[in-house]
C-alpha cells in the first residue's frame, strides 16, 4: 500500500521498477534474430531500403532532375542503353531519372498520408470512445456512411474539390497537399473503426478502473493509460496501410495526372500513345511502384505478426 503511493509520488522508484522489469539482453529486440524468424519481412525491409536510398540519393546516381530544363534532350524514345539505363521518353527525358525522382514523391506522399490518416483516425476514435453518447454515435454513423462510398471515388472528388482551395506549403505544393488530404480521408473511416473498437476494449480494462479510483481525470487516463496501450495497434495499422497509400497516390496520379513526375503519373496522359513502340516507358515506373508496394506489404505483414499475431485476418 505504502509502496504504491510512494511510486506515484516519487518518480525515482518508477525508474527502479523499470530496471527491475527490464527484459534481459537476450530477450530484447534483435533485428538479426527478427530477420531470421521473419525472412519475408526482412526481404521487405531490404527492398524498402534499396528504393528509399536510391530515391534519396537520386542526384548522385547519374540522373538529371526531370524538372530541370537540361533533362530535355534530342534523344527521344531511345531504348534502354548504357547512357539511358531505362530509356528515354518522347521529349528525350531519361526514364531512370524520372523513376528515381518519382520515388521521392511517391514515398513522401505515402508516408505523410498514412500518418495523417491513422493519427487522425486514432484521435477521433479516442474522442468517440471517451465522450461517448451522441458524439460516438455521430462519428460512427459518419464512418459507416463514408464506408458506403467507394474510397477511390471519394478521394478523387476531394482531390479535385480541394486543389482549387489550398495554399502552397513550403514542402508540399497545393496539388500534393490536396492529394495527401484526399488519401488520408480515404483511410480515416477504417482507422477510426478499428481504433474505436480497441479504445472501447481498453476502456473496460481493470487498469482504467484502478486509475479512476486513485482519482486520475478522464483526460489523463486517455493520454497516459489508454494511448500507450493502443500504440502497438497504431504502429501495425500504419505499416499495413502504407502500401495501400502509395498505391492510391499512384492511382490518383494516374487518373487525374500530376505536375510532379510521380510513378502513377508517368503511366498516364499523352505518353500512353507511345507505350506500344516504347514499352520501357510503362515497364520501369510500374515495376518500381510494384516493388515498393510489395516490400511494404511484406514488411507490414511481418510487423503485424511480430507485434500482435491476433490481428491476422482482421486488418
Amino acid at each position, binding site marked *: 500500500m505504502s509502496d504504491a503511493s510512494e511510486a506515484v509520488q516519487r518518480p525515482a522508484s518508477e525508474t527502479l521498477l523499470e530496471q527491475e522489469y527490464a527484459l534481459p539482453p537476450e530477450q530484447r529486440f534483435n533485428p538479426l534474430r527478427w530477420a531470421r524468424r521473419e525472412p519475408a519481412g526482412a526481404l521487405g525491409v531490404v527492398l524498402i531500403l534499396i528504393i528509399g536510398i536510391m530515391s534519396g540519393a537520386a542526384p548522385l546516381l547519374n540522373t538529371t532532375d526531370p524538372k530541370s530544363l537540361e533533362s530535355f534532350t534530342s534523344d527521344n524514345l531511345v531504348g534502354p542503353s548504357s547512357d539511358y539505363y531505362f530509356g528515354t521518353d518522347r521529349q528525350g527525358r531519361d526514364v531512370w531519372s524520372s523513376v528515381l525522382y518519382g520515388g521521392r514523391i511517391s514515398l513522401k506522399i505515402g508516408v505523410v498520408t498514412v500518418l495523417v490518416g491513422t493519427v487522425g483516425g486514432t484521435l477521433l476514435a479516442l474522442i468517440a470512445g471517451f465522450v461517448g453518447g451522441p458524439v460516438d454515435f455521430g462519428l460512427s454513423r459518419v464512418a459507416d456512411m463514408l464506408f*458506403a462510398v467507394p*474510397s477511390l471515388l471519394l478521394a478523387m472528388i476531394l482531390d479535385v474539390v480541394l486543389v482549387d482551395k489550398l495554399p502552397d506549403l513550403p514542402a508540399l505544393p497545393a496539388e500534393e497537399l490536396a492529394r495527401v488530404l484526399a488519401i488520408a480521408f480515404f483511410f480515416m473511416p477504417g482507422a477510426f473503426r478499428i481504433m474505436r473498437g480497441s479504445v472501447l476494449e481498453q476502456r473496460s480494462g481493470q487498469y482504467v478502473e484502478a486509475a479512476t479510483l486513485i482519482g486520475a481525470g478522464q483526460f489523463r487516463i486517455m493520454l497516459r493509460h489508454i494511448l500507450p496501450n493502443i500504440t502497438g495497434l497504431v504502429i501495425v495499422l500504419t505499416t499495413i496501410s502504407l502500401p495501400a497509400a502509395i498505391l492510391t497516390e499512384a492511382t490518383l496520379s494516374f487518373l487525374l495526372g500530376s505536375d510532379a513526375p510521380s510513378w502513377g503519373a508517368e*503511366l498516364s496522359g499523352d505518353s500512353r500513345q507511345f507505350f506500344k513502340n516504347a514499352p520501357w516507358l510503362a515497364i520501369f515506373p510500374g515495376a518500381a*511502384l510494384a516493388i515498393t508496394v510489395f516490400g511494404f*506489404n511484406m514488411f507490414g505483414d511481418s510487423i503485424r505478426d511480430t507485434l500482435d499475431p491476433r490481428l491476422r485476418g482482421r486488418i
Partner: protein
Amino acid sequence: MWNYIIRRLIAIPLMLLVLSLVLFLLIWTLPGDAAFTAALSIADTVNLEKLQERFGLDRPWYVQYGDWLGGIFVGDFGDSLTPPHDSVMGSVKERLPKTLEVGLLTIILSAVISVPVGVISAVRRNKPEDYLLRAGTILGISVPNFWTGTLIIIYAFVWFNWNPIQDWVEFTEDPLKNLAIVIFPAAILAYSGAAYTARIMRSAMLEVLYSDHVRTARAKGLRERVVIFRHVFRSALIPVLTVVGLQLGTILGGAIVAEQIFAIPGMGLFALERIVARDYTAVLMITMIFAAMFMFVTLLVDILYTYVDPRIRY
C-alpha cells in the same frame, strides 16, 4: 428476420439522405460559386448569366439542395453543368448496365479463383504449392491494376498484333464480342480482388483447421475430404463473406481505373470524366448511386450470413 430486413431497408434511404446532404455541403460550400462559374464559363462565356440562372447557382445552397432533392423523387437527376447539359439520368441509364456487367464478371471470376486458392493454400500449408500460391496472392495485392492493364494492352499488341481496346458491343447484339471486351477489365480487377480474398480465406481456414470441432470430426473417423468441406470450409466462409461484401466498393473504385484503360463507356469512366470536368451535379449523382448499391449489397451479405452460419440470428 423480416423485422430486421425492414428496419435496414428503412435505414438505407435515411443514410443516403444524410450522405447527400454531407456531399452537397462539401461540394457546394468548399469550392464556392467560383468553381461552378468556372466550370460553366469554360463551357460557355456568352451565356454565363443565363446558365447560372438555369442551374439556380444564384440562390442559397439550401434552396438548391431542396430543388435537387425534390427532383430525385420524380426521377430527375438534374442536368450536367458542362455542355451539352444533357440529363444525368439519361447517361446513367446508358452506362450503369456496362459497369454492372464488368462488376458481376469480376465477382464471379474473383470467387472462382480465390476460394480454391485459399483452400489449397491452407490445407497444404508450408508446402511448395502453398508458397507458390502465396507468392501469387502477394503479387496480386502489390501490383497496381492500372499497370497490369497497361502491360496487357502493350504486349497484346507487340506479341499478337492485336488491340484489346475495341468499340463497345452490347451483349444482346453479339455475346462473344461483348465478352472479349469485358473480360480484360474484369480479369485485372478480379486478380487483385481474388488475391486479397484468398489471403483472408487461407487464414480463416487455418484458424478453423485447428479448432476442437474439426479434431472431433477427424476423431470420429470422417474422411479428410468431408472434414475439410463440411466442417472447415463452411466456418471459414464467414469472414470471407464479409470481405467479399466490402470488396464491392473496391470493385466500383477499380471500375474507374479499368474502364479508363480499356475505354469501356461505363459508370467508372463517366465518374472520371465528370470529376475532371468539375461537373458536380453528375458527380453527386454518381456517388449516390454507388453508395446505394453498396448499402444494398451489404444488407444482402448480412442476410446471407444467416444461411452460412445458423448461429447468427437477427
